[in-house]
């Protein structure tokens, strides 16, 4: 028998087992979808197009197999442990190389641990043992198989502290942290907190928009002097703000529960909402590119089957609306640990190196790769792995 204190920090093995009736219920709901009329435009400017969503839902209801997704997760060592009162689910793969560098990699929204699965093997089993990592991939609180917080307060700062606790509990006294999307926000919070043993962070959605550029974008300041490259990035940001892609961010920040009812009761509604994210811009069943339809449905099904659409949206509310790409919003000046940045050119924002240098006082690595977008580890796992190896070579 263990004492309470021991129980609280216990690390227990975890396997995914979704009851068949929940899969049946999902299929039944998909088949019974009541559809709106077609959008009045010939493109995605009013949202996911009716015919494309119908194709996806049709495939989801009939051909898609959740058991394959479940097997992908269960093929990896998964655990849960209670941190700060909340059960945290994580994948933990140790490299055969004992002196590998421990790395904690954090997903975002509308992603999940699924977006990171392809990098596990190359990170833990590199051709050269010098590049090896021990990999820890947690599910954010309120996401996937982590528990849903039942009280407010689980903001990125608190998650960052929980991640440090997780690494220490796993016996990793010296480690690095990586993230994109919410993952970037959280590892930047870790960078500001600079817990003992955090050797460095790497982000693939860098908080680098300078305050004067931010003000100009908001119409609250004059256009600052910019190089040609900076000006091109500025124009792209203006276009992004006009494109309507940021509406989901505002909606979830303001009223996650209001959006949550529909995403919890309607799987087609959930899919449409998740595909709104710019990381899925241009994605469709007939043109899936680097993110296969099955992989996209693994991710969406995970949100559905764990009933985490509302709880995952609450992270936006907790965060309060500061832009994850804003240097001031993410207080990057306070990050003292070494920072590595990789720019994937098709991400929602493509910062120039000059802005990254202004944002991060201790920038040790900056590189723009030739391919890949918002879900970098998912879309370009080899490039992503190469970037992590290069970025952290200096801290080994």
């Amino acid at each position, binding site marked *: 028998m263990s004492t309470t204190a021991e129980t609280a920090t216990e690390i227990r093995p975890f396997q995914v087992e979704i009851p068949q009736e929940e899969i049946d219920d999902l299929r039944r709901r998909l088949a019974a979808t009541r559809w*709106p*009329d077609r959008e009045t435009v010939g493109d995605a400017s009013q*949202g996911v197009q009716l015919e494309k969503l119908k194709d996806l839902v049709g495939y989801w209801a009939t051909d898609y197999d959740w058991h394959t997704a479940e097997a992908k997760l269960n093929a990896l060592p998964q655990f849960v442990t209670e941190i700060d009162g909340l059960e945290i689910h994580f994948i933990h793969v140790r490299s055969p190389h004992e002196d590998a560098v421990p790395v904690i990699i954090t997903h975002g929204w509308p992603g999940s641990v699924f977006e990171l699965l392809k990098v596990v093997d190359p990170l833990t089993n590199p051709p050269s043992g010098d590049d090896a990592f021990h990999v820890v991939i947690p599910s954010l609180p309120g996401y996937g198989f982590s528990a849903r917080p039942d009280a407010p307060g689980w903001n990125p700062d608190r998650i960052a502290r929980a991640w440090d606790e997780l690494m220490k509990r796993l016996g990793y006294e010296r480690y690095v942290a990586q993230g994109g999307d919410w993952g970037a926000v959280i590892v930047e919070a870790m960078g500001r907190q600079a817990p003992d043993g955090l050797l460095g962070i790497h982000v693939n959605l860098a908080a680098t928009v300078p305050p004067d550029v931010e003000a100009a974008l908001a119409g609250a300041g004059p256009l600052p002097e910019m190089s040609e490259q900076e000006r091109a990035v500025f124009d792209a940001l203006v276009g992004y703000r006009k494109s309507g892609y940021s509406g989901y961010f505002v909606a979830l920040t303001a*009223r996650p*529960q*209001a959006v949550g009812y*529909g995403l*919890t*009761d309607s799987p087609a509604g959930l899919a449409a909402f998740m595909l709104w994210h710019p990381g899925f811009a241009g994605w469709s069943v007939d043109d899936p590119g680097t993110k296969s339809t099955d992989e996209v449905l693994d991710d969406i099904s995970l949100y559905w089957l764990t009933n985490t659409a*509302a709880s995952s949206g609450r992270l936006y509310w907790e965060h309060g609306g500061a832009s994850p790409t804003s240097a001031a919003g993410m207080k990057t000046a306070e990050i003292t640990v070494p920072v590595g940045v990789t720019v994937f050119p098709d991400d929602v924002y493509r910062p120039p190196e000059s802005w990254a240098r202004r944002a991060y006082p201790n920038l040790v690595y900056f590189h723009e790769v030739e391919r890949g977008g918002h879900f970098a580890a998912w879309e370009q796992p080899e490039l992503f792995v190469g970037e992590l190896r290069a970025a952290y070579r200096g801290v080994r």
Partner: protein
Amino acid sequence: MSTTAETATEIRPFEVEIAQEGIDDLRRRIGSTRWPTRELVDDRSQGVQLATLRELARYWANEYDFGRIAERLNELPQLTTEIDGVDVHFIHVRSQHEDALPLVMTHGWPGSVIEMLDVIGPLTDPAAHGGKVEEAFHLVLPSLPGYGFSGEPAEIGWYTGRVARAWAELMHRLGYARYVAQGGDQGAAVTDDLAHQAPEGLVGVHMNLLRTALGSTAGLPAESDEERAALDAVATFRQSGFGYFLEQSTRPQTIGYALLDSPVALAGWMLDHDTDSYYKISGAFLDGKPTGGLTRDHVLDNITLYWLTGTGASSARSYWEGGRAAALAAGKPPGAVSIPVAFTTFPGEIFRAPRSWVEKVYPTLAYFEEAPRGGHFAAWEEPELFASELRAAFKPLRGEGRTS
């Protein structure tokens, strides 16, 4: 047999008929709702609260009388006519007083003609509601394109300015050579556009939402306490109450899927509108204490109308049209309104527009009043008070020549 030209301008009687299988399906869906976990706060700051929505769903599925919509609407003269390619549904109640003033009143989102039903009596038959015979209106209540029983536009371009032109055509087609217009919410936008267009015969307007201030408060005075309070209220709305607005303006189809597929999603989305009406409606369901006309049955009449007509996506699209129209008009401010404008500020509205703001936006302001009660859905919540505001507001515009 009529010719095509005749058919196009024909005005046809309309009756609501609701298929039983649609009601059965709705009940079944409400009963099989999959719920999220409870919000983490004790107020509306994360959105419609679970307890409120669960009670609404329970009442909707078990106690609400689905025959109410057809009963309430079919006791009124309803008509449809095709204007600019879209079938427009409208209620048309002529006063028994021949020289009554014709009035076209426009609802908003998430409202419908349902929110106007209880002002019909006081406006068309004032003598029976504490007013005078000479204060009567002939009342026209259209459903916006894409809303309720109006047709759903299949092409882009139906922004409020085009709706306003359609309304002028509707009033012309009904034979009203001299009329006034009224609106709040989207209805205020239509009415504001009508006032700018000033079609022949439109002699005045009344609004209960200052549309321009929601978009931008630049240039509006911010010195007095009430001006600063209004500015704070607009800022609060833009910071935390703007989610639905931005979502519908940018991706109406995206939210539309959930609104068509999940009745509880639709109800939650519609209740999330503004703080004042949310707490009033929540009180009606949780505490059995409705505020004025915002009763459980009235609220569900409106939500059920959206569900059964399947207009969650098409109504949201009107915001997208608004955003597109605003982008196209950027840098081209509309000219000043030349006809008389009347305005009533209701205290529970998203912000209490002070007289100074309304005067700044409408130099022809001829009537301004602050009502003692009522909020965003003023006609719905306080029909008698609302009707008395319209009587007072339009009084100076009566008796100049023929009214119909």
